[in-house]
Protein backbone atom coordinates (compact mmCIF):
# COMPACT_ATOMS: atom_id res chain seq x y z
CA UNK A 1 0.00 0.00 0.00
CA UNK A 2 1.41 3.44 -0.87
CA UNK A 3 2.82 5.45 2.04
CA UNK A 4 0.58 8.46 1.44
CA UNK A 5 -2.56 6.35 1.47
CA UNK A 6 -5.58 7.57 3.41
CA UNK A 7 -5.26 6.83 7.14
CA UNK A 8 -8.85 5.58 7.15
CA UNK A 9 -10.50 3.80 4.24
CA UNK A 10 -13.85 2.08 4.76
CA UNK A 11 -15.91 0.38 2.06
CA UNK A 12 -19.30 -1.21 2.59
CA UNK A 13 -18.95 -1.55 6.38
CA UNK A 14 -21.76 -3.56 7.91
CA UNK A 15 -22.44 -4.51 11.51
CA UNK A 16 -25.64 -6.05 12.76
CA UNK A 17 -26.95 -6.68 16.26
CA UNK A 18 -29.51 -9.42 15.97
CA UNK A 19 -31.82 -8.42 13.14
CA UNK A 20 -30.94 -4.73 13.28
CA UNK A 21 -28.14 -3.29 11.18
CA UNK A 22 -26.30 -0.73 13.30
CA UNK A 23 -24.02 0.09 10.37
CA UNK A 24 -25.43 -0.65 6.97
CA UNK A 25 -23.03 -0.27 4.06
CA UNK A 26 -20.93 2.67 5.20
CA UNK A 27 -18.19 4.17 3.01
CA UNK A 28 -15.64 6.62 4.33
CA UNK A 29 -12.21 7.91 3.36
CA UNK A 30 -10.28 10.22 5.66
CA UNK A 31 -7.22 11.97 4.26
CA UNK A 32 -3.88 12.46 6.04
CA UNK A 33 -3.89 15.48 8.36
CA UNK A 34 -7.62 15.90 8.12
CA UNK A 35 -9.98 16.62 11.02
CA UNK A 36 -13.14 14.69 10.27
CA UNK A 37 -16.30 15.02 12.37
CA UNK A 38 -18.84 12.23 12.43
CA UNK A 39 -22.30 13.53 13.32
CA UNK A 40 -25.51 11.68 13.86
CA UNK A 41 -28.30 11.06 16.35
CA UNK A 42 -27.90 8.48 19.11
CA UNK A 43 -28.12 4.99 17.67
CA UNK A 44 -27.12 6.18 14.21
CA UNK A 45 -24.10 3.87 14.19
CA UNK A 46 -21.45 6.44 15.07
CA UNK A 47 -20.01 4.63 18.05
CA UNK A 48 -20.19 1.23 16.38
CA UNK A 49 -18.35 2.60 13.35
CA UNK A 50 -15.66 4.20 15.47
CA UNK A 51 -15.26 1.06 17.59
CA UNK A 52 -14.77 -1.02 14.46
CA UNK A 53 -12.08 1.41 13.31
CA UNK A 54 -10.43 1.28 16.76
CA UNK A 55 -10.31 -2.51 16.67
CA UNK A 56 -12.78 -2.95 19.56
CA UNK A 57 -15.57 -4.49 17.50
CA UNK A 58 -15.64 -7.06 14.76
CA UNK A 59 -17.50 -6.16 11.60
CA UNK A 60 -19.88 -8.42 9.72
CA UNK A 61 -18.94 -7.22 6.24
CA UNK A 62 -16.93 -4.62 4.39
CA UNK A 63 -13.34 -3.53 3.90
CA UNK A 64 -11.66 -1.50 6.62
CA UNK A 65 -8.13 -0.15 6.49
CA UNK A 66 -6.77 2.03 9.31
CA UNK A 67 -3.18 3.20 8.85
CA UNK A 68 -2.86 0.49 6.23
CA UNK A 69 -3.96 -2.36 8.50
CA UNK A 70 -7.15 -4.20 9.30
CA UNK A 71 -8.03 -3.16 12.88
CA UNK A 72 -9.41 -6.62 13.57
CA UNK A 73 -5.99 -8.22 13.16
CA UNK A 74 -3.63 -5.29 13.77
CA UNK A 75 -1.14 -5.71 16.59
CA UNK A 76 0.58 -3.59 19.19
CA UNK A 77 2.80 -1.82 16.63
CA UNK A 78 -0.39 -0.47 15.07
CA UNK A 79 -1.71 0.60 18.48
CA UNK A 80 1.55 2.52 18.90
CA UNK A 81 0.50 4.78 16.00
CA UNK A 82 -3.06 5.56 17.09
CA UNK A 83 -4.52 7.43 20.05
CA UNK A 84 -7.98 6.77 21.42
CA UNK A 85 -9.96 9.06 23.69
CA UNK A 86 -12.90 7.00 24.88
CA UNK A 87 -16.23 8.47 25.91
CA UNK A 88 -15.34 8.30 29.55
CA UNK A 89 -12.42 6.73 31.24
CA UNK A 90 -12.52 6.12 34.93
CA UNK A 91 -10.46 3.96 37.21
CA UNK A 92 -7.78 6.59 37.59
CA UNK A 93 -9.28 8.20 40.69
CA UNK A 94 -6.54 7.08 43.04
CA UNK A 95 -3.60 8.33 41.00
CA UNK A 96 -2.58 11.77 39.79
CA UNK A 97 -2.59 13.06 36.21
CA UNK A 98 1.21 13.02 36.22
CA UNK A 99 1.32 9.38 37.40
CA UNK A 100 -1.28 8.34 34.83
CA UNK A 101 0.54 10.06 31.98
CA UNK A 102 3.96 8.77 33.05
CA UNK A 103 2.83 5.18 33.24
CA UNK A 104 0.97 5.42 29.92
CA UNK A 105 3.96 7.09 28.22
CA UNK A 106 6.08 4.04 29.08
CA UNK A 107 4.14 1.73 26.79
CA UNK A 108 4.79 3.85 23.66
CA UNK A 109 7.88 3.71 21.51
CA UNK A 110 8.30 7.46 21.08
CA UNK A 111 6.09 9.21 23.62
CA UNK A 112 5.65 12.94 24.02
CA UNK A 113 7.23 14.55 27.04
CA UNK A 114 4.91 14.13 30.04
CA UNK A 115 5.40 17.71 31.25
CA UNK A 116 4.70 19.07 27.77
CA UNK A 117 1.46 17.13 27.57
CA UNK A 118 0.42 18.28 31.06
CA UNK A 119 0.94 21.88 29.93
CA UNK A 120 -0.75 21.32 26.56
CA UNK A 121 -3.95 20.02 28.18
CA UNK A 122 -3.86 22.75 30.82
CA UNK A 123 -3.39 20.55 33.89
CA UNK A 124 -0.17 22.09 35.21
CA UNK A 125 -1.78 23.17 38.46
CA UNK A 126 -3.65 19.90 38.91
CA UNK A 127 -0.85 17.56 37.85
CA UNK A 128 -0.30 16.20 41.37
CA UNK A 129 -3.91 16.13 42.57
CA UNK A 130 -5.83 12.86 42.66
CA UNK A 131 -7.80 12.39 39.45
CA UNK A 132 -10.83 11.66 41.66
CA UNK A 133 -10.77 15.28 42.79
CA UNK A 134 -10.69 16.82 39.29
CA UNK A 135 -13.72 18.41 37.62
CA UNK A 136 -15.39 16.74 34.65
CA UNK A 137 -13.66 19.06 32.19
CA UNK A 138 -10.26 18.49 33.80
CA UNK A 139 -10.72 14.72 33.64
CA UNK A 140 -11.65 14.99 29.99
CA UNK A 141 -8.48 16.96 29.31
CA UNK A 142 -6.53 14.22 31.05
CA UNK A 143 -8.26 11.70 28.78
CA UNK A 144 -7.07 13.69 25.79
CA UNK A 145 -3.59 13.88 27.30
CA UNK A 146 -3.56 10.09 27.62
CA UNK A 147 -4.77 9.85 24.01
CA UNK A 148 -1.95 11.99 22.62
CA UNK A 149 0.93 10.98 24.92
CA UNK A 150 2.06 8.35 22.39
CA UNK A 151 2.41 10.93 19.56
CA UNK A 152 -0.33 9.26 17.48
CA UNK A 153 -0.60 9.70 13.72
CA UNK A 154 -4.32 9.15 14.04
CA UNK A 155 -6.44 10.27 16.98
CA UNK A 156 -9.97 9.11 17.77
CA UNK A 157 -12.00 11.53 19.89
CA UNK A 158 -15.37 10.26 21.05
CA UNK A 159 -17.59 13.16 22.17
CA UNK A 160 -14.63 14.94 23.73
CA UNK A 161 -16.29 18.07 25.14
CA UNK A 162 -19.53 16.72 26.59
CA UNK A 163 -20.05 18.50 29.90
CA UNK A 164 -17.55 21.30 29.23
CA UNK A 165 -18.29 24.91 30.05
CA UNK A 166 -17.95 27.33 27.09
CA UNK A 167 -14.46 28.51 28.05
CA UNK A 168 -13.20 24.95 28.55
CA UNK A 169 -14.61 24.05 25.15
CA UNK A 170 -12.77 26.97 23.48
CA UNK A 171 -9.52 25.92 25.19
CA UNK A 172 -10.07 22.38 24.04
CA UNK A 173 -10.62 23.49 20.45
CA UNK A 174 -7.27 25.32 20.57
CA UNK A 175 -5.65 22.09 21.73
CA UNK A 176 -7.16 20.16 18.82
CA UNK A 177 -6.11 22.85 16.31
CA UNK A 178 -2.57 22.58 17.65
CA UNK A 179 -2.61 18.81 17.10
CA UNK A 180 -3.91 19.32 13.58
CA UNK A 181 -1.10 21.76 12.85
CA UNK A 182 1.29 19.08 14.04
CA UNK A 183 -0.09 16.83 11.28
CA UNK A 184 -2.28 14.50 13.38
CA UNK A 185 -5.27 13.05 11.55
CA UNK A 186 -8.33 13.29 13.80
CA UNK A 187 -11.64 11.49 13.72
CA UNK A 188 -14.09 13.21 16.02
CA UNK A 189 -17.61 12.26 17.00
CA UNK A 190 -19.69 14.98 18.57
CA UNK A 191 -23.21 16.15 19.27
CA UNK A 192 -22.17 19.79 19.08
CA UNK A 193 -22.54 21.24 15.61
CA UNK A 194 -20.62 24.38 16.48
CA UNK A 195 -17.76 22.11 17.49
CA UNK A 196 -17.82 20.34 14.14
CA UNK A 197 -18.01 23.68 12.36
CA UNK A 198 -15.03 25.09 14.27
CA UNK A 199 -12.78 22.07 14.08
CA UNK A 200 -13.60 19.86 11.14
CA UNK A 201 -12.33 20.04 7.58
CA UNK A 202 -15.18 17.76 6.60
CA UNK A 203 -18.23 16.41 8.38
CA UNK A 204 -20.14 13.23 7.73
CA UNK A 205 -23.73 12.83 8.88
CA UNK A 206 -24.83 9.29 9.56
CA UNK A 207 -28.24 7.96 10.45
CA UNK A 208 -29.59 4.42 10.44
CA UNK A 209 -26.06 3.18 9.75
CA UNK A 210 -25.65 5.03 6.45
CA UNK A 211 -23.71 8.12 5.43
CA UNK A 212 -26.37 10.69 4.51
CA UNK A 213 -24.08 13.57 3.61
CA UNK A 214 -20.38 14.19 3.55
CA UNK A 215 -18.83 17.58 2.84
CA UNK A 216 -17.07 20.56 4.38
CA UNK A 217 -19.13 22.22 7.13
CA UNK A 218 -19.72 25.20 4.82
CA UNK A 219 -21.03 23.10 1.94
CA UNK A 220 -22.82 20.31 3.79
CA UNK A 221 -26.21 19.50 2.32
CA UNK A 222 -25.87 22.27 -0.28
CA UNK A 223 -25.63 24.93 2.43
CA UNK A 224 -23.38 27.30 0.47
CA UNK A 225 -25.53 27.24 -2.65
CA UNK A 226 -28.90 27.36 -0.94
CA UNK A 227 -30.93 30.55 -0.83
CA UNK A 228 -30.00 33.24 1.63
CA UNK A 229 -32.54 35.18 3.61
CA UNK A 230 -32.15 38.96 3.58
CA UNK A 231 -34.12 41.12 6.01
CA UNK A 232 -34.15 44.90 6.42
CA UNK A 233 -36.37 47.75 7.55
CA UNK A 234 -37.88 50.40 5.33
CA UNK A 235 -38.30 54.11 6.16
CA UNK A 236 -41.42 53.44 8.21
CA UNK A 237 -39.67 50.73 10.29
CA UNK A 238 -41.57 47.81 8.67
CA UNK A 239 -39.46 44.62 8.35
CA UNK A 240 -39.05 43.08 4.93
CA UNK A 241 -37.81 39.53 4.23
CA UNK A 242 -36.67 38.19 0.90
CA UNK A 243 -35.20 34.79 0.04
CA UNK A 244 -32.74 35.03 -2.79
CA UNK A 245 -29.92 33.10 -4.43
CA UNK A 246 -28.12 36.39 -5.15
CA UNK A 247 -28.07 38.21 -1.81
CA UNK A 248 -25.12 40.43 -2.75
CA UNK A 249 -27.05 41.96 -5.65
CA UNK A 250 -30.04 42.55 -3.40
CA UNK A 251 -27.96 44.23 -0.70
CA UNK A 252 -26.18 46.40 -3.29
CA UNK A 253 -29.52 47.49 -4.70
CA UNK A 254 -30.89 48.27 -1.23
CA UNK A 255 -27.80 50.32 -0.37
CA UNK A 256 -28.05 52.27 -3.62
CA UNK A 257 -31.76 52.96 -3.08
CA UNK A 258 -31.07 54.23 0.47
CA UNK A 259 -27.96 56.10 -0.47
CA UNK A 260 -25.89 54.41 2.29
CA UNK A 261 -26.76 52.38 5.40
CA UNK A 262 -29.67 49.94 5.29
CA UNK A 263 -31.32 49.86 8.75
CA UNK A 264 -31.69 46.43 10.42
CA UNK A 265 -29.93 44.58 7.59
CA UNK A 266 -29.27 40.82 8.08
CA UNK A 267 -28.16 38.18 5.60
CA UNK A 268 -28.45 34.58 6.83
CA UNK A 269 -27.92 31.17 5.34
CA UNK A 270 -29.14 27.92 6.92
CA UNK A 271 -26.90 27.13 9.90
CA UNK A 272 -25.09 23.82 10.06
CA UNK A 273 -27.62 22.86 12.69
CA UNK A 274 -30.56 23.66 10.36
CA UNK A 275 -28.94 21.60 7.62
CA UNK A 276 -28.15 18.74 9.98
CA UNK A 277 -31.65 18.63 11.44
CA UNK A 278 -33.26 18.61 8.00
CA UNK A 279 -30.89 15.81 6.93
CA UNK A 280 -31.66 13.52 9.83
CA UNK A 281 -35.36 14.41 10.17
CA UNK A 282 -36.59 11.54 7.95
CA UNK A 283 -34.64 9.06 10.11
CA UNK A 284 -35.94 10.13 13.50
CA UNK A 285 -39.49 8.86 13.10
CA UNK A 286 -40.06 5.85 15.30
CA UNK A 287 -37.10 6.70 17.49
CA UNK A 288 -33.77 5.00 16.90
CA UNK A 289 -32.53 3.01 19.86
CA UNK A 290 -29.52 4.64 21.45
CA UNK A 291 -26.12 3.09 21.82
CA UNK A 292 -26.83 1.42 25.15
CA UNK A 293 -29.78 -0.34 23.58
CA UNK A 294 -27.58 -1.56 20.76
CA UNK A 295 -25.33 -3.15 23.34
CA UNK A 296 -28.23 -4.80 25.08
CA UNK A 297 -29.46 -6.11 21.75
CA UNK A 298 -26.13 -7.72 21.12
CA UNK A 299 -25.95 -9.12 24.64
CA UNK A 300 -29.39 -10.63 24.19
CA UNK A 301 -28.13 -12.31 21.05
Amino acid sequence: MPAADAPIRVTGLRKTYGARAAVDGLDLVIEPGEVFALLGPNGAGKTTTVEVLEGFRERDAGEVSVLGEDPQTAGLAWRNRIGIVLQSSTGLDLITPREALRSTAKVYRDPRDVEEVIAAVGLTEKADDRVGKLSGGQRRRLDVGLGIIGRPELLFLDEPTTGFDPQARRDFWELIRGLKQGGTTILLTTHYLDEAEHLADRVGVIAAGRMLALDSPANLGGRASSQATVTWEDESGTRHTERTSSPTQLVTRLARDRGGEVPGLTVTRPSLEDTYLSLIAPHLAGGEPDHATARELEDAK
Partner: protein
Amino acid sequence: MNAVAIGWDRTLLELKMYFREKEAVFFSFAFPILMLGLFSVVFGGNFDRGAETEVNAARFFLPGMAAAGVMLTSFQTMALSVAVERDDGTLKRLRATPMPPISYFLGKIGLVALTSLAQFALLIAFARLAFGVELPTDAGRWATFAWVFLLGVACGTVLGIAYSSLATSSRSVGALVIAPTLVLQFISGVYFAWGDLPDWLKQVASVFPLKWIAQGMRSVFYPDDWKSMEMAGSWEHGRTALVIGAWLVVGLVLCARTFRWSKRGTT
Protein backbone atom coordinates in the same frame (compact mmCIF):
# COMPACT_ATOMS: atom_id res chain seq x y z
CA MET B 1 10.37 -0.91 27.27
CA ASN B 2 9.78 -4.62 27.15
CA ALA B 3 6.76 -6.42 28.51
CA VAL B 4 8.45 -7.30 31.82
CA ALA B 5 9.65 -3.75 32.47
CA ILE B 6 6.16 -2.41 31.70
CA GLY B 7 4.75 -5.11 33.99
CA TRP B 8 7.02 -3.92 36.80
CA ASP B 9 5.98 -0.34 36.16
CA ARG B 10 2.37 -1.43 36.40
CA THR B 11 3.14 -3.26 39.65
CA LEU B 12 4.37 0.02 41.16
CA LEU B 13 1.26 1.82 39.91
CA GLU B 14 -1.00 -0.96 41.23
CA LEU B 15 0.72 -0.78 44.63
CA LYS B 16 0.13 2.97 44.78
CA MET B 17 -3.54 2.50 43.98
CA TYR B 18 -3.89 -0.44 46.40
CA PHE B 19 -2.52 1.38 49.40
CA ARG B 20 -4.42 4.57 48.58
CA GLU B 21 -7.69 2.65 48.75
CA LYS B 22 -8.33 2.44 52.45
CA GLU B 23 -11.11 -0.14 52.19
CA ALA B 24 -8.83 -2.58 50.38
CA VAL B 25 -6.02 -2.03 52.84
CA PHE B 26 -8.37 -2.72 55.73
CA PHE B 27 -10.41 -5.62 54.37
CA SER B 28 -7.73 -7.59 52.62
CA PHE B 29 -4.34 -6.41 53.88
CA ALA B 30 -4.86 -5.72 57.59
CA PHE B 31 -7.83 -8.01 58.13
CA PRO B 32 -6.04 -11.29 58.98
CA ILE B 33 -3.68 -9.44 61.29
CA LEU B 34 -6.56 -7.75 63.11
CA MET B 35 -8.45 -11.04 63.32
CA LEU B 36 -5.41 -12.81 64.74
CA GLY B 37 -5.14 -10.14 67.41
CA LEU B 38 -8.84 -10.32 68.20
CA PHE B 39 -9.04 -14.13 68.34
CA SER B 40 -5.89 -14.38 70.41
CA VAL B 41 -7.28 -11.95 72.98
CA VAL B 42 -10.82 -13.37 73.05
CA PHE B 43 -9.87 -17.06 73.14
CA GLY B 44 -6.62 -16.61 75.03
CA GLY B 45 -8.11 -18.11 78.20
CA ASN B 46 -9.13 -21.36 76.49
CA PHE B 47 -5.51 -22.14 75.75
CA ASP B 48 -4.19 -21.36 79.20
CA ARG B 49 -3.32 -24.89 80.26
CA GLY B 50 0.06 -24.23 81.83
CA ALA B 51 3.11 -25.98 80.50
CA GLU B 52 1.05 -28.83 79.09
CA THR B 53 1.18 -27.35 75.58
CA GLU B 54 3.35 -24.80 73.84
CA VAL B 55 0.46 -23.78 71.58
CA ASN B 56 -1.24 -20.56 72.68
CA ALA B 57 -4.25 -18.98 70.97
CA ALA B 58 -2.15 -16.91 68.59
CA ARG B 59 -0.19 -19.94 67.44
CA PHE B 60 -3.41 -21.88 67.11
CA PHE B 61 -4.99 -19.28 64.80
CA LEU B 62 -1.83 -18.24 62.95
CA PRO B 63 -1.99 -20.87 60.15
CA GLY B 64 -5.64 -20.10 59.43
CA MET B 65 -4.98 -16.38 59.28
CA ALA B 66 -1.98 -16.94 57.02
CA ALA B 67 -4.20 -19.00 54.70
CA ALA B 68 -6.97 -16.39 54.82
CA GLY B 69 -4.42 -13.71 54.01
CA VAL B 70 -3.29 -15.64 50.94
CA MET B 71 -6.87 -15.85 49.72
CA LEU B 72 -7.76 -12.25 50.49
CA THR B 73 -4.73 -10.67 48.86
CA SER B 74 -4.82 -12.97 45.86
CA PHE B 75 -8.33 -14.18 45.07
CA GLN B 76 -10.40 -11.41 46.62
CA THR B 77 -8.18 -8.53 45.47
CA MET B 78 -8.00 -9.90 41.93
CA ALA B 79 -11.68 -10.75 41.56
CA LEU B 80 -12.75 -7.33 42.84
CA SER B 81 -10.20 -5.21 41.01
CA VAL B 82 -10.42 -6.93 37.63
CA ALA B 83 -14.23 -6.87 37.66
CA VAL B 84 -14.27 -3.17 38.55
CA GLU B 85 -11.60 -2.39 35.96
CA ARG B 86 -13.58 -4.20 33.29
CA ASP B 87 -16.78 -2.41 34.27
CA ASP B 88 -15.36 1.11 34.48
CA GLY B 89 -13.44 0.90 31.20
CA THR B 90 -9.91 0.69 32.62
CA LEU B 91 -9.25 -2.54 30.74
CA LYS B 92 -10.58 -1.07 27.51
CA ARG B 93 -8.40 2.01 27.96
CA LEU B 94 -5.33 -0.19 28.50
CA ARG B 95 -6.28 -2.29 25.49
CA ALA B 96 -6.34 0.89 23.40
CA THR B 97 -2.62 1.38 24.07
CA PRO B 98 0.30 -0.70 22.80
CA MET B 99 0.78 -2.19 26.27
CA PRO B 100 1.48 -5.92 25.88
CA PRO B 101 -1.46 -7.74 27.51
CA ILE B 102 0.94 -9.90 29.53
CA SER B 103 2.21 -6.73 31.25
CA TYR B 104 -1.21 -6.16 32.76
CA PHE B 105 -1.15 -9.62 34.31
CA LEU B 106 2.47 -9.25 35.40
CA GLY B 107 1.46 -6.02 37.12
CA LYS B 108 -1.32 -7.83 38.98
CA ILE B 109 0.95 -10.74 39.89
CA GLY B 110 3.56 -8.29 41.19
CA LEU B 111 0.92 -6.53 43.27
CA VAL B 112 -0.37 -9.76 44.76
CA ALA B 113 3.11 -11.18 45.42
CA LEU B 114 4.34 -8.08 47.21
CA THR B 115 1.19 -7.40 49.22
CA SER B 116 0.79 -11.00 50.34
CA LEU B 117 4.47 -11.27 51.32
CA ALA B 118 4.31 -7.99 53.24
CA GLN B 119 1.07 -9.11 54.86
CA PHE B 120 2.57 -12.41 55.92
CA ALA B 121 5.70 -10.73 57.30
CA LEU B 122 3.53 -8.42 59.39
CA LEU B 123 1.36 -11.32 60.50
CA ILE B 124 4.21 -13.42 61.87
CA ALA B 125 5.98 -10.39 63.34
CA PHE B 126 2.75 -9.53 65.14
CA ALA B 127 2.28 -13.11 66.33
CA ARG B 128 5.88 -13.30 67.56
CA LEU B 129 6.13 -9.89 69.20
CA ALA B 130 2.63 -9.48 70.63
CA PHE B 131 1.86 -13.08 71.58
CA GLY B 132 5.25 -14.74 71.78
CA VAL B 133 4.38 -17.40 69.20
CA GLU B 134 7.20 -19.89 68.61
CA LEU B 135 8.09 -19.74 64.93
CA PRO B 136 9.59 -22.72 63.14
CA THR B 137 13.37 -22.72 63.02
CA ASP B 138 14.13 -25.62 60.69
CA ALA B 139 14.59 -25.00 56.96
CA GLY B 140 12.28 -27.87 56.01
CA ARG B 141 9.25 -26.17 57.47
CA TRP B 142 10.05 -22.88 55.76
CA ALA B 143 10.49 -24.75 52.49
CA THR B 144 7.01 -26.20 53.01
CA PHE B 145 5.76 -22.71 53.73
CA ALA B 146 7.38 -21.38 50.55
CA TRP B 147 5.71 -23.81 48.19
CA VAL B 148 2.31 -23.72 49.90
CA PHE B 149 2.41 -19.94 49.90
CA LEU B 150 3.56 -19.57 46.27
CA LEU B 151 1.16 -22.17 44.95
CA GLY B 152 -1.68 -20.68 47.01
CA VAL B 153 -1.02 -17.13 45.83
CA ALA B 154 -0.69 -18.18 42.18
CA CYS B 155 -3.87 -20.25 42.42
CA GLY B 156 -5.82 -17.45 44.11
CA THR B 157 -4.62 -14.91 41.55
CA VAL B 158 -5.69 -16.85 38.45
CA LEU B 159 -8.95 -17.98 40.05
CA GLY B 160 -9.67 -14.37 41.03
CA ILE B 161 -9.10 -13.15 37.48
CA ALA B 162 -11.30 -15.95 36.13
CA TYR B 163 -13.97 -15.31 38.78
CA SER B 164 -14.11 -11.60 37.88
CA SER B 165 -15.86 -12.54 34.62
CA LEU B 166 -18.94 -13.65 36.58
CA ALA B 167 -19.65 -10.11 37.68
CA THR B 168 -21.91 -8.24 35.29
CA SER B 169 -21.33 -4.89 36.96
CA SER B 170 -19.05 -3.45 39.58
CA ARG B 171 -22.09 -3.01 41.82
CA SER B 172 -22.76 -6.73 42.06
CA VAL B 173 -19.15 -7.81 42.40
CA GLY B 174 -18.76 -7.01 46.10
CA ALA B 175 -21.40 -9.47 47.25
CA LEU B 176 -20.49 -11.98 44.55
CA VAL B 177 -16.89 -12.18 45.77
CA ILE B 178 -17.07 -11.54 49.49
CA ALA B 179 -19.94 -13.93 50.34
CA PRO B 180 -18.31 -17.11 48.96
CA THR B 181 -14.88 -16.23 50.34
CA LEU B 182 -16.40 -15.69 53.77
CA VAL B 183 -18.22 -19.04 53.68
CA LEU B 184 -15.08 -20.75 52.44
CA GLN B 185 -13.05 -19.27 55.28
CA PHE B 186 -15.51 -20.60 57.85
CA ILE B 187 -15.64 -24.15 56.44
CA SER B 188 -11.94 -24.41 55.64
CA GLY B 189 -10.63 -24.22 59.17
CA VAL B 190 -9.63 -20.59 59.14
CA TYR B 191 -11.80 -19.27 61.97
CA PHE B 192 -12.98 -22.51 63.58
CA ALA B 193 -10.77 -25.35 64.57
CA TRP B 194 -10.78 -27.73 61.61
CA GLY B 195 -11.42 -30.65 63.93
CA ASP B 196 -14.70 -29.14 65.17
CA LEU B 197 -16.37 -29.22 61.74
CA PRO B 198 -18.79 -32.04 60.85
CA ASP B 199 -17.39 -34.59 58.41
CA TRP B 200 -19.66 -33.73 55.49
CA LEU B 201 -18.60 -30.09 55.71
CA LYS B 202 -14.99 -31.18 55.72
CA GLN B 203 -15.65 -33.13 52.54
CA VAL B 204 -17.17 -30.05 50.90
CA ALA B 205 -14.28 -27.86 52.03
CA SER B 206 -11.78 -30.41 50.72
CA VAL B 207 -12.91 -29.71 47.18
CA PHE B 208 -11.65 -26.12 47.42
CA PRO B 209 -8.07 -24.96 47.68
CA LEU B 210 -8.38 -22.86 50.84
CA LYS B 211 -8.71 -25.94 53.07
CA TRP B 212 -5.45 -27.27 51.65
CA ILE B 213 -3.64 -23.97 52.01
CA ALA B 214 -4.75 -23.85 55.65
CA GLN B 215 -3.65 -27.44 56.18
CA GLY B 216 -0.29 -26.69 54.62
CA MET B 217 0.09 -23.71 56.92
CA ARG B 218 -0.80 -25.86 59.95
CA SER B 219 1.96 -28.25 58.97
CA VAL B 220 4.35 -25.31 59.09
CA PHE B 221 3.30 -23.72 62.37
CA TYR B 222 1.84 -26.54 64.52
CA PRO B 223 3.84 -29.08 66.49
CA ASP B 224 4.43 -32.12 64.30
CA ASP B 225 2.40 -34.50 66.50
CA TRP B 226 -0.73 -32.39 65.88
CA LYS B 227 -0.99 -34.01 62.48
CA SER B 228 -2.97 -36.77 64.22
CA MET B 229 -5.86 -34.29 64.37
CA GLU B 230 -6.00 -33.94 60.57
CA MET B 231 -8.57 -35.89 58.55
CA ALA B 232 -5.99 -38.33 57.24
CA GLY B 233 -3.88 -38.31 60.37
CA SER B 234 -1.01 -36.79 58.39
CA TRP B 235 -0.20 -33.43 56.77
CA GLU B 236 -0.84 -34.86 53.27
CA HIS B 237 1.69 -32.62 51.55
CA GLY B 238 1.43 -34.54 48.29
CA ARG B 239 -2.30 -34.21 48.07
CA THR B 240 -2.11 -30.55 49.10
CA ALA B 241 0.20 -29.79 46.18
CA LEU B 242 -2.00 -31.80 43.86
CA VAL B 243 -5.29 -30.07 44.78
CA ILE B 244 -3.91 -26.53 44.75
CA GLY B 245 -1.99 -27.30 41.56
CA ALA B 246 -5.12 -28.66 39.88
CA TRP B 247 -7.05 -25.51 40.79
CA LEU B 248 -4.19 -23.44 39.43
CA VAL B 249 -4.43 -25.24 36.08
CA VAL B 250 -8.23 -24.92 36.05
CA GLY B 251 -7.86 -21.20 36.79
CA LEU B 252 -5.35 -20.70 33.99
CA VAL B 253 -7.61 -22.46 31.48
CA LEU B 254 -10.61 -20.42 32.61
CA CYS B 255 -8.62 -17.18 32.36
CA ALA B 256 -7.46 -17.99 28.85
CA ARG B 257 -10.96 -18.92 27.72
CA THR B 258 -13.07 -16.30 29.44
CA PHE B 259 -10.93 -13.19 29.94
CA ARG B 260 -12.42 -10.11 28.26
CA TRP B 261 -11.04 -6.60 28.00
CA SER B 262 -14.47 -5.00 27.83
CA LYS B 263 -17.91 -5.64 29.11
CA ARG B 264 -19.92 -8.12 27.10
CA GLY B 265 -20.81 -6.94 23.63
CA THR B 266 -17.37 -5.84 22.52
CA THR B 267 -14.26 -7.77 21.61
